[in-house]
């Protein structure tokens, strides 16, 4: 066999695109499709947290004279609203949206027919998740600041926290998507997994006031650390739920690295047949 002696045509083969170019191109594909219907895409994602702030933070908050972690109720809720925005943005993107691309749009098949590798596909996808997390967190943070629910200058780091939070929950979403065979199975993940975690992680009330076993469980969820991190940014360390609150940003970062890389690997394995 002379296969090893293959000589390309005279102009020579084009240089293969670099990893950075490949990840950028995957990211760009999602950005293009997203930007094409920006209004329809972004409106509900931003409106939902703001409705929560209005209905509960302002509406219910008016009847609550007590301070939570030394904060008025509206400001107490701000951290949870930011965390929830990043979480749901990333979780949706890495589950429903990813599944649709995988099964119905065949978008990944097109990528795989080009120089994009299975790992590029999901790393690019995860970067896109994180970008959306950053984008929505930023918008919501600006609105919260304008509404007077923010008292710390550290809020300028909210986009970074949104990015890292979205990496973590994008990775978690991938883990779920890698085992799901039918799109309606995601309901279990959202209603049995994410919703209780969000409500018992310090969005509505301080979790340190929960009875003992529940409190420890809450401390162990990634969402508690996400909300603690955001509270550091909205109101500063004086209003934390625990004295060791400085650990939380590192827990979030570590979670993002572990869940992100694990999720990408699992999805790669699902894609390669």
């Amino acid at each position, binding site marked *: *066999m002379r296969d*090893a002696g*293959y000589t*390309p045509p005279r102009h020579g083969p084009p240089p293969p*695109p670099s990893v950075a170019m490949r990840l950028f*191109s995957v990211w760009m594909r999602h950005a293009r499709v997203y930007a094409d219907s920006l209004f329809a895409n972004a409106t509900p994602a931003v409106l939902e947290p703001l409705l929560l702030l209005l209905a509960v933070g302002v509406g219910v908050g008016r009847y609550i004279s007590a301070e939570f972690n030394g904060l008025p109720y509206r400001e107490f809720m701000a951290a949870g609203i930011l965390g929830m925005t990043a979480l749901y943005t990333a979780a949706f993107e890495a589950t429903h949206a990813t599944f649709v691309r995988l099964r119905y749009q065949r978008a990944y098949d*097109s990528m*795989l*027919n*080009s120089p994009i590798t299975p790992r590029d596909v999901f790393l690019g996808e995860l970067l896109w998740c994180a970008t959306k997390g950053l984008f929505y967190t930023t918008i919501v943070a600006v609105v919260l600041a304008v509404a007077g629910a923010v008292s710390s200058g550290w809020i300028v780091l909210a986009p970074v926290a949104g990015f890292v939070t979205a990496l973590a929950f994008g990775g978690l979403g991938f883990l779920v998507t890698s085992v799901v065979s039918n799109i309606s199975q995601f309901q279990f993940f959202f209603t049995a997994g994410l919703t209780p975690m969000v409500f018992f992680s310090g969005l509505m009330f301080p979790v340190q006031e929960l009875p003992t076993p529940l409190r420890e469980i809450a401390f162990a969820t990634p969402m508690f650390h996400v909300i603690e991190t955001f509270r550091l940014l909205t109101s500063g360390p004086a209003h934390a739920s625990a004295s060791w609150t400085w650990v939380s940003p590192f827990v979030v970062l570590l979670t993002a690295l572990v869940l992100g890389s694990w999720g990408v690997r699992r999805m790669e394995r699902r894609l390669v047949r």
Partner: protein
Amino acid sequence: MMDVGAERDVNDAPVVAARGVVKRFGDLTAVDGVDLQIRPGTCYALLGPNGAGKSTLSRIIGGVSPCDDGDVHVFGMDPWEHQVEVKTRLGVVPQEDGLDEELDVLRNLHVYGLFFGLRGVAFRERAAQLLEFMELSGRETTRVVALSGGMRRRLSIARGLLSDPEMMILDEPTTGLDPQVRHAIWAALRRLRARGLTSLLTTHYMEEAAQLADTVGILHRGRLVAEDAPDALIREHLPAHVVETEIAGGAAHGSGRTTERPSRDACDASDASAADAPEGALVERYGDRLFVFHDDRETLLAWAAQHGGGRTLARAASLEDVFLKLTGRSLDA
């Protein structure tokens, strides 16, 4: 295969060289020990019934799917291990096109071009050329949802050509299209071949293979059961002429049987017409049709005049006849 002159001689090593390729999905062996080579500048058509392993094999060659056994070289490299390098030089037109429905024609090309690192002026020039070549000029801002099936497929081919590939892989490029569009696409593919583009085509349209391919490989249950130039395949496997007629006494019970005259005892009572076939004929059946093959057209016509019933048709033996003979007639083939 084709004499392409001295200039090509240095390049004569096969673009694709596969040996003993095996691919399993659980208990199913989709590709079961295939050897094939594709020479530069030629078109190789993989022909086979649904589920024969055509798409699986083309995905392995395209660096999308790893094989379980055997070795594959594309441009002299293992397409799975060196998938970025190999895929940079391939243009793929998949069966399910995976175009972004909500994006317009030009944006679809732009997104795909970026996967190859193609952008800026180089992209714009190439895109304009290809839209012209595939007769899509003026459609740049039309969303893919609004394109007809034929335009979609032409866009998918333009997209596959975007990176100026050395080889194309076309998976059922004209399935589901009307005859006009099919012929237009064939014309485009022939022009590409005339420019020296190597291609691997999977199809279950015999005419497509006959029109486009230099070499046809017939894949059946994951194995390559025959491989040659289209005309040579017909000559090797069947007499030159055939008469199709209705079977006397209605549909045959056992379809998928080949009877060679004088092995008369292989025919049961309802096969009267098969038994009457002329000396030296090859008789095949499927459904309620009887196919009598013979090298001498006059003999066949004389036989048909006497025995032909219902709708009788005399024609040259085709690739489809070879295909049916080799892959069997029953639907579970």
